[in-house]
């Protein structure tokens, strides 16, 4: 197949919702009695915090609503696949997508799925969706992939607690890839079984820090090697104008980049290269924390908001999910990509999150850490959280459940 004949699919629109509250990393470290000196290697300044009126459904809907609102009715009805990617599932059978589909008002002629592979799953779904759309089975169709999660980490997570985020990324995939035109067939995967981190119950996470970080690093090398085997002349140092990586915390991305540069014999250039090619993608992750499978798309939004992209440029992206599965892939962004992301106002919303004291944070966590636990009947007093909500009545909140059916309202 010649280059001219390659299918052109990718991300048409992208929005990130990262909650309504945040706590600074120094405040959280102080509150937990942890070493403030660790902030330097974490490279984190704050993290998003969930409220009792938020859950994986509200995060997903609040991320996707602006994307859907910008579509014509015909474009909205062309969404024939809705996938929620989450490690914060609400039920062993019923998907988060089933609720999200309803509150977004999508067509009933639409497939609904929920996928899970820790922080990798959304990227797997994006790639599968792009491949399906490129097959031509349904010309003009679109797919909406939403990575959505909530944080359950507490003091048991130690230094992972300040690095854990809350929110969702909504990714509209189609044949007019304004935000990111995927390089068709340019990808590399690397997966193997390991128990580096997991969520064995709806109330807590487990993690083996070294096993997880080391797997992330091995998978970057392994997935990029697979990418190189598929893409003639691919070069980590020269092929990509910018890099976007899954960001458990920005300090790990810096270490991972350094490892790859070493492997390419480019150690001496690593620091300057990191500043130039990676730092723009770390600005939002450093303010939000790990957004699970949405993290790489938060990093993409950060790049497009922070960098001066004046001409089309190829970028390399890396997604990693514990367990583990990973992918290195690439695509083209340009000035139109940056304009599309700017229109979403992500930076302004991050700045508008209300700052919490450690006491407020701990009080909220006492409630939110149970948010995924199925209860037949639950009532949440929304009035206690009005001060957090934006004006306009277009924000979905979680109000409780009745006979296990979760209830939501627009406020």
């Amino acid at each position, binding site marked *: 197949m010649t280059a001219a004949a390659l299918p052109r699919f990718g991300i048409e629109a992208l929005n990130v919702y990262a909650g309504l509250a945040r706590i600074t990393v120094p405040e959280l470290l102080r509150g937990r009695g942890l070493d403030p000196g660790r902030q330097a290697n974490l490279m984190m300044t704050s993290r998003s915090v969930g409220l009792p009126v938020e859950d994986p459904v509200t995060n997903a809907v609040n991320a996707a609503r602006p994307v859907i609102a910008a579509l014509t009715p015909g474009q909205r009805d062309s969404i024939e696949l809705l996938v929620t990617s989450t490690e914060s599932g609400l039920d062993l059978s019923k998907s988060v997508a089933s609720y999200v589909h309803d509150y977004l008002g999508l067509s009933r002629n639409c497939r609904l799925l929920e996928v899970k592979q820790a922080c990798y799953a959304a990227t797997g779904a994006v790639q599968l969706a792009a491949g399906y759309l490129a097959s031509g089975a349904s010309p003009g169709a679109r797919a909406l992939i939403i990575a959505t999660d909530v944080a359950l980490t507490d003091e048991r997570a130690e230094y992972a607690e300040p690095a854990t985020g809350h929110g969702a990324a909504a990714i509209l995939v189609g044949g007019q890839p304004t935000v990111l035109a995927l390089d068709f067939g340019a990808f590399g995967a690397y997966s193997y079984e390991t128990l580096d981190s997991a969520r064995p119950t709806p109330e807590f996470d487990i993690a*083996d820090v*070294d096993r997880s*970080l080391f*797997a992330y690093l091995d998978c970057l090398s392994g997935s990029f090697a697979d990418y190189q085997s598929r893409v003639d002349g691919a070069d980590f140092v020269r092929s990509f104008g910018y890099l976007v990586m899954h960001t458990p915390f920005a300090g790990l991305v*810096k*270490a991972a980049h350094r490892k790859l540069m*070493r492997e390419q014999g480019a150690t001496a250039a690593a620091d300057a290269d990191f500043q130039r090619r990676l730092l723009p993608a770390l600005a939002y992750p450093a303010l939000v924390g790990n957004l699970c499978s949405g993290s790489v798309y938060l990093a993409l939004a950060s790049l497009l908001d922070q960098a001066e992209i004046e001409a089309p440029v190829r970028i390399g992206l890396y997604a990693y999910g514990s367990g583990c599965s990973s992918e290195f892939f690439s695509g083209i962004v340009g000035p139109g990509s940056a304009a599309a992301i700017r229109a979403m106002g992500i930076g302004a919303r991050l700045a508008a999150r209300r700052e919490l004291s450690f006491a407020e944070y701990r009080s909220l966590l006492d409630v939110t850490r149970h948010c995924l636990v199925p209860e037949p009947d639950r009532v949440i007093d929304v009035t206690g959280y009005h001060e957090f909500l934006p004006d306009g009545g277009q924000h979905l909140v979680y109000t409780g459940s009745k006979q296990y059916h979760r209830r939501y309202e627009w406020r």
Partner: protein
Amino acid sequence: MTGHGQYRDAVAELVRGVIGTILPGVPVSAMTEERHLRELGADSVDRVEIILSILDLLSLDEPMSSFSSLPNLGALFDFLTTEKSSR
């Protein structure tokens, strides 16, 4: 002392030198065989840097996951000695 024992001593000296570079406040006397890098104050990024530097200096191409379960510095010295000897 056997050749293997001498080589292990050389590996241990190299590892302690790397730790001293990444964690300049830690004296060599604190880097005892039964301690883990965590106990010396190395955070996760420091541990990555220490292992990558060691692999560079020993010209070893070993997956990072090989180092996930080593319980202490003594086990690290043993592992590196065995890996280097087998190549």
